[in-house]
């Protein structure tokens, strides 16, 4: 979130807040987006203060209360508000700690994909020629594979684990940034402000990153938000398939990996982690929709 706010300020002229204010005006007209942002900020707070908020340690096993139902659904133990799992761990505490993983996955994957994708896209769009052709054909090849399948195969090569899963997802997501950046660079490159900077003697690096890049930020911010929620979903899917974070990590997808066994016996073990994923992803997508409406003048509500 911090990244988004700062980028919006820097895209407006320095010292002028009207750009930001206008952005907030359009963004706040979208009630869904504001709701999503609120939920997302709350989640960040939950992740930061997880050890304080969680009633128990995520790994503490209460052997005498295995698969205890939530107190509001027939359980007898009010201290386990969302019940306990197959080895007697408090589900609520695991979910609270799990928020750290999901948000970390989102931030790291998006940052990685953004840095690599934007750099490649800038180089391709700026230099054109064979560099452009080479980079974009490689992006085409990556995009030709269904993303989850490619991530799975990459994890099979690298070995299962959260870090490798994040690496694989970042690699799969970055072509979208490269394509967007390249398209934006192509439309900006021939503008007069770029020519004047070039005439003034700006270096290639300066032209790419300082002159052109800030003017391509709108669509990149929207794509980053979408990728953030995609990264969380894909990491959860990899965890579910046993190829992401490994047990006993309280990652939400990993928590669901064994859940199929409890479909009939303990529905709360299945329901709660997925609900956490859905709420998080939905909140981020609501923010993404709001950002798109606010940043894309073409779709702006009249």
């Amino acid at each position, binding site marked *: 979130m911090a990244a988004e706010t700062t980028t919006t300020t820097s895209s407006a002229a320095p010292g002028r807040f009207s750009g930001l204010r206008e952005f907030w005006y359009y963004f706040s007209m979208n009630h869904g987006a504001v709701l999503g942002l609120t939920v997302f900020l709350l989640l960040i707070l939950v992740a930061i203060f997880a050890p304080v908020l969680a009633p128990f340690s995520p790994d503490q096993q209460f052997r005498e209360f295995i698969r205890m139902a939530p107190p509001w659904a027939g359980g007898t133990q009010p201290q386990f508000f969302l019940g306990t799992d197959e080895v007697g761990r408090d589900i609520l505490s695991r979910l609270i700690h799990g928020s750290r993983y999901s948000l970390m996955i989102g931030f790291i994957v998006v940052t990685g994909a953004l840095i690599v994708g934007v750099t490649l896209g800038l180089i391709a769009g700026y230099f054109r020629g064979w560099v452009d052709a080479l980079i974009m054909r490689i992006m085409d090849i990556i995009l030709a594979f269904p993303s989850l399948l490619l991530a799975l195969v990459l994890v099979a090569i690298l*070995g299962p684990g959260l870090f490798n899963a994040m690496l694989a997802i970042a690699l799969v997501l970055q072509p979208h940034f490269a394509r967007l950046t390249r398209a934006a660079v192509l439309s900006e490159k021939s503008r007069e402000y770029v020519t004047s900077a070039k005439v003034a003697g700006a270096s290639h690096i300066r032209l790419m990153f300082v002159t052109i890049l800030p003017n391509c930020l709108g669509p990149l911010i929207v794509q980053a938000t979408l990728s953030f929620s995609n990264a969380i979903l894909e990491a959860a899917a990899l965890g579910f398939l046993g190829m992401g974070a490994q047990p006993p990590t309280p990652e939400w997808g990993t928590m669901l990996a064994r859940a199929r066994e409890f*479909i009939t016996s303990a529905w709360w073990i299945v329901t709660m982690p997925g609900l956490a994923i859905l709420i998080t992803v939905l909140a981020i997508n609501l923010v993404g929709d709001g950002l798109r409406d606010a940043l894309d003048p073409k779709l702006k509500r009249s």
Partner: protein
Amino acid sequence: MLRFILQKLALIVPTVIGITIASFAFIRLLPGDPILAMAGQHGVTPERYEILKEQFGYNLPIWQQYFNYVAGILQGNFGVSLATKRPVIEEFMTLFPATVELALFAMLIAVALGIPAGIFAAIKRGSWFDQITMGVALTGYSMPIFWWGLLLIIFFSGYLGWTPVSGRIALNFFFPRVTGFMLIDSLIAGKPDAFVSALRHLILPAIVLGTIPLAVIARQTRSAMLEVLGEDYVRTARAKGLEPNRVVGVHAFRNALIPVVTTIGLQVGLLMAGAILTETIFSWPGIGKWMIDSISKRDYVSVQSGLLLIALIVMAVNLIVDILYAVINPRIRVQ
């Protein structure tokens, strides 16, 4: 038109070569020695190792290995599964219809519900119907579908007992395999109760796999309709006094359909990714589950060829969509 198709074909040639390089590189990128990796935990004797090395051609220079690999593919030789010792292409072709049947049914649900929902949401823009539909669509779009599948199983299979939990058809039905589609084969064999069984097995996985495409199509249809409804020719049609249904159905919808068709086509890659999760949850004997099983069994020859075949199929479908797009939208062809 022919020139357009040839142009498109020429453009995908480098991508196809890249896909073969990627799948060729896959086995060689596995940590450690590829033959030891394929042999698994049992290991091999040094003599057997040399034989295998020769058999897989690993003693040749890398470019020649790649050349042999591509030559094999062109002759339909995709290697032999390490797990079952059967040709991979045979296994793939046995399982592929199950995935296609599931994906087609999922797409049918997505299109049949998504397009009308999107149109009505656009016409009644800002109404409660629009807001609820778009809220539901965004929720569907945000859905972790593996969890969604588990929820549906809990409710419909566990609580209500309406649908089976896994598989394609009840085990007591036998009929010859003609098309590989259970729904069609059961009808050809004249067994309506087998058809019903197949349908009951299909419905939940199809809903799960169709959820995200449904959400995408509903959102895309709505925004395409909104864009078109603001165009001058729609205003003209209204001003002429045409009845509203005709304006929406003929003038607006036909033009809004173009981006929607593209969206539908672009869902194919998404469907393949979704099939991996859906088939795993419902034990659906298709390509997605086969890929997961092959990865966990370390059957790397199957993984390699599955990766290649899936990428090529997704690409072929996207190419067909591109061409269809040009057929319904002449503006593309002229560019």
